[in-house]
C-alpha cells in the first residue's frame, strides 16, 4: 500500500515527560490526508497529551511536530493562527466558554473567521446543532445548564463549526448513549465522504472504533505500538493489544444470561 507523501500531521521522535515520568519516548506517527485515525491506549497513556502537541498547545521535550506539512511554529503569527484554524478540536472535558450561551459558543469560531453575515452564522449554527441532535431551543442555554452528554455534543458542534479539514476529537462518544454514538459515527462518516476530512480521534469504545476508524494507532509503552487497519492491528501479538481488543470477545463469549 503506497500512501501519499505529505501527511497532515507528522510526529517524529517525540519525547515527553512530566518530572521523572516519561509519557512518550521516541514516538513516530504520520496521519495521512483522508485518514479516520483512531488513537487508542490505556488511561494515562498520553493520548490527550499527544493531541495537544499536534496543534501546539503543548510542546514536546524533543521531537518534530509538523501540521499540514509545515513545522508548527513556522511562519508569522497570522500564518500560525491560520494553520490552527484549519483544525477543529473537541476537548475531553468540552471546554465550552462558560460565559457564552450554546449559540454563541458555536458561533464563536464563525465570527472569528470573519466575512460571514449574521443570518448566515445563524443558519450555520442551527445546522451544526441539528447535526449533533440538539434542538434550537437549546441554543439559548448556558453551558452550566447542560447535561454531560449535551456538553460533549455542543463542543463537537463547535469543533465542526468551520467544517475544518482536520478534526481532533478526544473521546467524542464518551457520555453519549449507544444510539447517539452510532449516529455520531454516521455523521463523521458523511462529513468525511463529502468534505474529505481528516479525523484523529481518541476512543475507548470498541464499537465506535470498529465502525469509524480506517486506521488504528495503539499508544502503549510510550510509543505507537501498532499502526494500520483494524485487522492488521488485531493481528499484532502483544499483551496490551491482546487485552484491549480481546477483552470484549471474551466478555461476549462469557456474557451469557446470569452475568
Amino acid at each position, binding site marked *: *500500500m503506497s*500512501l*501519499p507523501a505529505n501527511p497532515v500531521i507528522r510526529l517524529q521522535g517525540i519525547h515527553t515527560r512530566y518530572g521523572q515520568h516519561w509519557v512518550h519516548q521516541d514516538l513516530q506517527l504520520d496521519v*495521512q*490526508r*483522508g*485518514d479516520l485515525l483512531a488513537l487508542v491506549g490505556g488511561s494515562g497513556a498520553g493520548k490527550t497529551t499527544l493531541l495537544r502537541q499536534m496543534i501546539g498547545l503543548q510542546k514536546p521535550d524533543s521531537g518534530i511536530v509538523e501540521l499540514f506539512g509545515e513545522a508548527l511554529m513556522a511562519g508569522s503569527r497570522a500564518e500560525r493562527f491560520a494553520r490552527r484554524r*484549519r483544525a477543529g478540536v473537541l476537548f475531553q472535558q468540552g471546554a465550552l*466558554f*462558560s*460565559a457564552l450561551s450554546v*449559540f454563541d459558543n458555536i458561533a464563536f469560531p464563525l465570527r472569528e*473567521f*470573519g*466575512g*460571514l453575515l449574521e443570518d*448566515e452564522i*445563524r*443558519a*450555520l*449554527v*442551527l*445546522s451544526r*446543532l*441539528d*447535526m449533533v441532535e440538539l434542538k*434550537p*431551543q437549546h*441554543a*439559548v442555554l*448556558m*453551558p*452550566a445548564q447542560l447535561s454531560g452528554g449535551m456538553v460533549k455534543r455542543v463542543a463537537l458542534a463547535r469543533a465542526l463549526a*468551520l*467544517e*475544518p*479539514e482536520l478534526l481532533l476529537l478526544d473521546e467524542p462518544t464518551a457520555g453519549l448513549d449507544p444510539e447517539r454514538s452510532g449516529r455520531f459515527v454516521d455523521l463523521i462518516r*458523511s462529513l*468525511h*465522504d*463529502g*468534505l*474529505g476530512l*481528516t479525523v484523529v480521534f481518541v476512543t475507548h469504545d470498541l464499537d465506535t472504533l470498529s465502525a469509524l476508524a*480506517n486506521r488504528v494507532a495503539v499508544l502503549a509503552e510510550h510509543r505507537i505500538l501498532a499502526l494500520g487497519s483494524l485487522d492488521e492491528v488485531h493481528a499484532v501479538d502483544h499483551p496490551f493489544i491482546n487485552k484491549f481488543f480481546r477483552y470484549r470477545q471474551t466478555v461476549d463469549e462469557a456474557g451469557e444470561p446470569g452475568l
Partner: protein
Amino acid sequence: MKRHARAQALLKAPPPSLQRQGQRVVLAGDWSLFALRPRLLWTRAQLRLQGRGAEEWDLTGVSRLDAFGALLVLRCWAGREPATLVIDERQRAAFERIRASAAAVLPTVRRDWLLPVRWLGQTLCSAGSHVRDFADMLGMVVLEAMRFAIEPRSIPFKEFSAALYKAGMQALPISALVGFLIGVVLSYLSALQLRNFGAEALIINILGIGIIRELGPVLVSILVAGRSGSAITAQLGVMRVTEEIDALSAMGVSRYQRLVWPKVLALAIAMPLLVAWTSAAALAGGMVCADVLLDIEWAYFASALPNVVPIQNLYIGLAKGGAFGVTIALIACHFGLRVKPNTESLSANTTASVVTAITAVILLDAIFAMLTRGIGVPLR
C-alpha cells in the same frame, strides 16, 4: 486507497467559480468555507447578479461543497428551487444538512414591557437573598463553632493554619512597606503645618493617635480585603465552578466547617497582629521623618509616645482589626459561595466582594468611632 485518493484530489481543487450560460448557471471548483473566504464579496455579488432567475443549476463541476457553500446557493434561490438542478449525492447531502436550518428561526424573546418593574423586583429580591444567605452563613458559622466545642476533632486545624499563613504571614512585607511610606508622608505633611505654629512636639500626638487608632486598622483592612478577600472569593468561586463544593457536600463535609470557618478564624487572628505590625511600621516612618524635618530624635519620640497616647487607643485599634478581619472573611466567603458556575459570575462576585468588604469596613469604622468617642482621647 479510494479515500486517500479523493482527499488528495480535493486538495488540488480549483477555487470556486460561477458562470451564466443563458438560463443555465454552472458552478465549479471548491465551494467550501475556507476556499470561499478570500473571495467572499465577489462570490456573493456574482451569485446575486448572475444567479437571479436562472432556471437551471449545474453543480457537477463542484469538487467540494460544504454547508456554507450550500447556504450561499440556497440564499440565492431565496426559497424557490430551480426547475433543473444537477447535483450528485454528496452535494445533496450538503444541501440537506443546511436546508432546514436556513429557514429555521431561533426562539425569540418577546419584548417585555414590564421590564423596569421586573428589574426593580429582581433587584430587591437579590438584595433580600443576599441578606438571607449572609444570615444563613452567619448562623451556620456560629453553629459550627458550637459543634467544635463538643467535638474538637472536627476543628479544621490544617486549613486554619494554611489560611493564617497566607493571609497573615505572607502579607507582612507589603503591609510594612505601605505602612512605612504612609507614615513618612503623614509625618512630612503634618510637620510642615506644625512648624508654622511652633508646635513641633504635637507631631507625636497626631501620629500616635491617628495611626494607632484609625489609620492602621483601616489601611490594613483595605490591603487585606484586596489581597485575601479577593483570593478567598476566587478560590470558593472556582471550587463552585468545578463542582468541588458539591463534592464536599456529597462526602458529608460541611462547607462552613471546612471552607468558611478556617478563613474567618484566620483573619480574626491575623488582622490584629497585622494592625500592630503595620502601625509600628507607620510610626517608624513617622519617626524617621520627624527626626529629619523637625529634629525630634527617635528615642524621644518613642519615650514620649506612651505618655501622650493613652493605651486604650491601642486596644481600640486591635479590636477594630479583629472585627474588620471577621467582616472581610465573612463577606468574601459569602460572595464566593454565591458564584454561579461560569466565569462571568466569578469575576463579578470577586469584584463585588472586594468593593463590599471595603465599604463595610469603612461603615464599621464610623460606628466604632461613634461608640468609642469618649475613650482614649485626652481632652484638656
